[in-house]
């Protein structure tokens, strides 16, 4: 936009004379206008909850990806006393070295039983109870390149040499989880858009109703030669104020909710909950966007109505 038009445009949106305008004072004291900040506040709050839920899911997905990327697990069932008649430890070492020497494997490491017990604790209870339980032994395998073909080939080679050993491909359930996560994330974003759109529709409806209510005065102003921006200016200060206050209310309540969750959930709140780093920019962008969009909706609504007649 050329600078010559930006300055008058800014001046127009920043003008303040509420009480001297013929409709401004009436419009800003109407009940619909008085509750408008609260309606906008609720919608901004909902939108922020949705967007932060969506971001939490995104963060969790990112962590899953990092944890599970390109990793498969080789499971040795506990019943197998010795692989191929070999003594336990020896057969195990040969399995490890077999895996390590395989072309498709970059790393193979047994999960120490202590860590395994820790992982199983929620299901089996503390280490004391696990003592003596026949636990499977697990080997984490990082592959150079993970695709179905490479995994199938490794599986074939493995079962040829160690028939009782199982190869657990994380990718199947990982992909399922990722898909569920993405769907939830999508729902969150759609809900955010719906909340913001609802707030904007309410602004548009409020302006439409006010224009109908004051139709005779607007008609009078037009006959007197008022231009579109003069009539828009009647409604601008109240809507600007309502959307600024509403956006702030929504943001503040959201920040309070977040702080409360942080305090209450201290220690066991999952990592990645709530916005991280740059995502905070999004949190502040949502109310700002709504504020600006409400002004745009105001202008579009009024000009659309006024342009129905020359």
């Amino acid at each position, binding site marked *: 936009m050329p600078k010559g038009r930006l300055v008058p445009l800014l001046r127009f949106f920043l003008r303040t004379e509420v009480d001297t305008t*013929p409709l401004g004072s009436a419009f800003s004291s109407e009940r619909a206008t008085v509750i408008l900040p609260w309606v906008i506040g609720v919608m901004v709050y909902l939108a922020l909850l949705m967007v932060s839920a969506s971001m939490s899911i995104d963060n969790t997905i990112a962590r899953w990806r990092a944890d599970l990327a390109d990793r498969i697990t080789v499971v040795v069932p506990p019943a197998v006393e010795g692989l191929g008649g070999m003594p336990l430890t020896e057969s195990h070492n040969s399995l490890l070295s077999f895996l390590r020497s395989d072309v498709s494997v970059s790393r193979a490491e047994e999960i120490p039983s202590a860590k395994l017990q820790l992982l199983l604790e929620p299901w089996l209870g503390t280490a004391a109870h696990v003592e003596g339980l026949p636990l499977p032994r697990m080997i984490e395998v990082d592959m150079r390149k993970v695709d179905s073909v490479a995994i199938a080939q490794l599986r074939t080679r493995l079962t040829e040499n160690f028939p009782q050993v199982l190869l657990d491909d994380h990718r199947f359930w990982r992909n399922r989880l990722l898909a569920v996560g993405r769907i939830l994330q999508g729902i969150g974003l759609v809900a955010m858009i719906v909340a913001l759109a609802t707030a904007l529709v309410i602004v548009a409806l409020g302006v439409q109703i006010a224009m109908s209510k004051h139709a005779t005065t607007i008609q*009078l*102003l037009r*006959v*007197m*030669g*008022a*231009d579109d921006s003069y009539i828009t200016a009647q409604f601008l200060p109240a809507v600007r104020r309502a959307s600024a206050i509403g956006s702030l209310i929504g943001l503040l309540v959201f920040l309070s909710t977040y702080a409360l969750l942080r305090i209450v959930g201290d220690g066991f709140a999952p990592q990645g909950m709530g916005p991280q780093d740059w995502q905070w920019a999004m949190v502040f962008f949502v109310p700002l966007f709504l504020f600006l969009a409400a002004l745009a909706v105001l202008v579009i609504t009024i000009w659309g109505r006024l342009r129905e007649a*020359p």
Partner: protein
Amino acid sequence: MVLVRFDNVGMRYGLGPEVLHDIAFSLPSGSFHYLTGPSGAGKTSLLRLMFLAQQPSRGTINAFGKDVTSKDRKVLQSLRRRIGVVFQEFRMVSHLSAAENVALPLRIRGMSEPSIREHVREIMAWVGLEHHTEADTATLSGGQQQRVAIARAVISNPDLLLADEPTGNVDDALAERLLYLFEQMHKNGTTVVVATHNRRLIERYPHPVFQLDDGWLKKS
């Protein structure tokens, strides 16, 4: 110079029947005309065309040298600012005081607050309402509201002043006083059109008369 010119103008409301037919006339700048005719003849409709609230369904209207049927919004808005209108039903903005109503045309023009106050004071004195500036318009009598309406129509010093039955709701003495205000505007060079039934007033202040009958215009 011709200020307003109608050529072969017809008008209908929406899809309704034509209420004005083949209207052709011109208003010389600085002239004073009456517009008479029975109720329903189309006086208000003709004035609506003149103050550019309505577009004709056929024919052309030229005002201040511009074709107003072109529907150029900017042009229409600037032309409307040169026209003052006294409505048949006053059209006071009910939540504004008398002075605020009168100030409206100046606010639209973006005049500064002190000048507006000065102009309003002057014009309210001119219509004899200097003691009613802060009054709620609903508390004013019909005659007082009519004078507020006239003050509002003339405060911006329009080139064209249109009044729709301004003496319809007032007694003869006040009617004569109101006509005197229009006469003064006319003497100042404003082009005036007054719609009225009042034969006595027309005789008292004689000017050319447009006679409307069932949407047909006769000049006498």
